[in-house]
């Protein structure tokens, strides 16, 4: 029989650490003690069932997309119209979007993949359209803003993911939207007037930040000290 000297509890004889406090348990090599595992080495049911469904969905979509691309490429040889090129470019992008969004890789790899796909997709559209000016002025900087903003929101989510989801997920989404509106506004103003100026995003940011403060304030409750000061200063 093996015991944890710190907790004073008996533990399974095949354990080399206490399951409660992780304190090392000396190996007494007691031949009479049971060494059977009480639980099997468990499989993850979520992993097995989720992966099966995911692969089925992914390969079905890939077959459909590639069939459409083949048909469209054939049409392109015959007609060579802009609209067919738009479709081909969209379906190629759809293939990469699905690959990155279906969860084969880790979040950061997926996010980077989606960003690069977006940048190339928008560039291909601008090339088909013979107008690449707006791409470097507007599209590329806005894609970069979305990427940086998403990374920031993701880090914020990781920091708070063990807290109440009903509160923290809306807060993280609102923070993402506030920074997105600010970034987009700055990109547009810089492209138009060549100066960094905040215009309409000021209102969306104030609204968003106020909502965040209200949600967090209600959730955490305003501290007694602030309540006291508010009451004193604004009493009627």
């Amino acid at each position, binding site marked *: 029989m093996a015991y944890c000297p710190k907790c004073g509890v008996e533990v399974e004889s095949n354990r080399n650490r206490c399951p*409660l406090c992780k304190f090392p348990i000396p190996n007494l090599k007691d031949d009479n003690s049971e060494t059977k595992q009480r639980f099997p080495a468990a499989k993850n049911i979520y992993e097995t069932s989720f992966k099966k469904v995911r692969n089925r969905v992914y390969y079905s979509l890939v077959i459909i997309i590639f069939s459409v691309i083949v048909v469209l490429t054939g049409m392109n040889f015959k007609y060579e119209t802009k609209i067919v090129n738009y479709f081909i470019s969209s379906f190629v992008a759809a293939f990469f979007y699905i690959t990155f969004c279906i969860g084969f890789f880790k979040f950061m790899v997926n996010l980077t993949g989606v960003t690069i796909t977006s940048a190339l997709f928008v560039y291909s559209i601008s090339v088909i359209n013979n107008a690449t000016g707006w791409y470097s002025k507007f599209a590329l900087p806005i894609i970069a803003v979305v990427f940086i903003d998403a990374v920031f929101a993701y880090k914020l989510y990781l920091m708070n993911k*063990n807290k109440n989801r*009903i509160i923290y997920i809306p807060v993280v989404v609102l923070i993402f939207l506030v920074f997105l509106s600010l970034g987009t506004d700055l990109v547009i103003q810089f492209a138009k007037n060549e100066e960094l100026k905040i215009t309409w995003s000021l209102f969306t940011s104030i609204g968003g930040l106020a909502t965040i403060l209200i949600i967090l304030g209600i959730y955490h409750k305003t501290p007694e000290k602030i309540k006291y000061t508010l009451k004193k200063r604004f009493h009627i």
Partner: protein
Amino acid sequence: MRGNEKWYKLDNAGKMYPSITTTEMSTVFRLSFILKEIIDRERLQMALDKVIERFPYFRVNMHRGMFWYYFDYTEQKLMIEQEEYFPCMFLKYKKKNFPFRVVYYENRLAVEFSHSITDGTGALVFLKTLLCEYVEPDITKREVIEMVKNIGEAEVHGEWENSFEKFYKKGAPFPDKNKRALQLNLKRVPKGEYYAIKGILESEDIKKCSERYKCTITQFLLALYFEALIEYFKNGKKRKGRIVINTLVNLRRIFPSDTMKNFFGSIAPEIDTRLGEYTREEIIGYIKNYMKLMINEKNFLKAISRNVSSEKNIFVRLMPLLLKNLFMPVLYNVVGEAGYTTSFSSMGDIKFPNDVIDKIDHAEFFPPPSYGNIIRTGIIASNGKTTIIFGKLTKNTTLEMLFFRKIRKENIRVKIETNIQ
């Protein structure tokens, strides 16, 4: 599902569970018996084939209606499975599978039931009947004992009843709304994993100890659990506040019911750490008085009233199932689990016929995994051993360490087993 009808409605508590079930929050609980010998698969399958006929209300598949889910009779054969997944894992019962499974591993015989079909008592009756049939197939040689069904007889009317509706009193007031409680914000394990820390104690030791404090075993363990939680929050970063333990109550002990469907309620004893320090005697005194005040017919009529009347509301009834599935998880999280710090469920001391008890080492009860209450506790006693299981979606063991160290300080021997590798 009697006479010509081959389907039946879900009971009032069961209706909520299919809508809130996810791969992570399976709403599946496990009851098991550890035998003194290795399980014989073929013998167990034979016993199950006979026993399932006695429980026609469990021989069902779940289907989608326009407004609610319902159970429909199935001719499918229920096969026993060798344990390969974590306990209490997701059951695909909405896809033409049984809403429960029978699993075995070495000398463990277990049933895992979705809460949509029955509660701990219903599952226990099924498992006890299965075990008795497995150990002694000759019914004439077996001692008759409560909570074991005679498989030679047909089921009785009371086993089918929806006791919530039967005891519902129109016009009865609702219970007070839950206020927010302190939460155990611990790092979660990946989806599909579930861990358990099991403590095995001698029932006699714990009985003597609770007698010393002039309380019942449940009250004593609940008091120790409160103490462990107080210490946990005191040592952590978390501010002070209300520690609430959702304590489940078998309503069959209060209302005359033989139902095999869900029929349970809960009380929520709480300790507010903003009010200062608590001694053990204070906590036990509070729990004893609280239980006396809350565990009675009139108080539970309020909870039944809330369950049944909200479901009788014409707008709720006419809401399509798709919308119910969207709203229920949010409601459950906000109104239900946010009001509790953890939960505590005691199945009591399980009795067996004399020829069966010799074959059993001890029993286990694994509470269902949950997002809101990341650690839950299940207690069951059998054959002189009490098992306390902390079922959890985290690998953090601080709370269990505090709890079992308190038990050891009372000079009660504890053996710890776990599936954390």
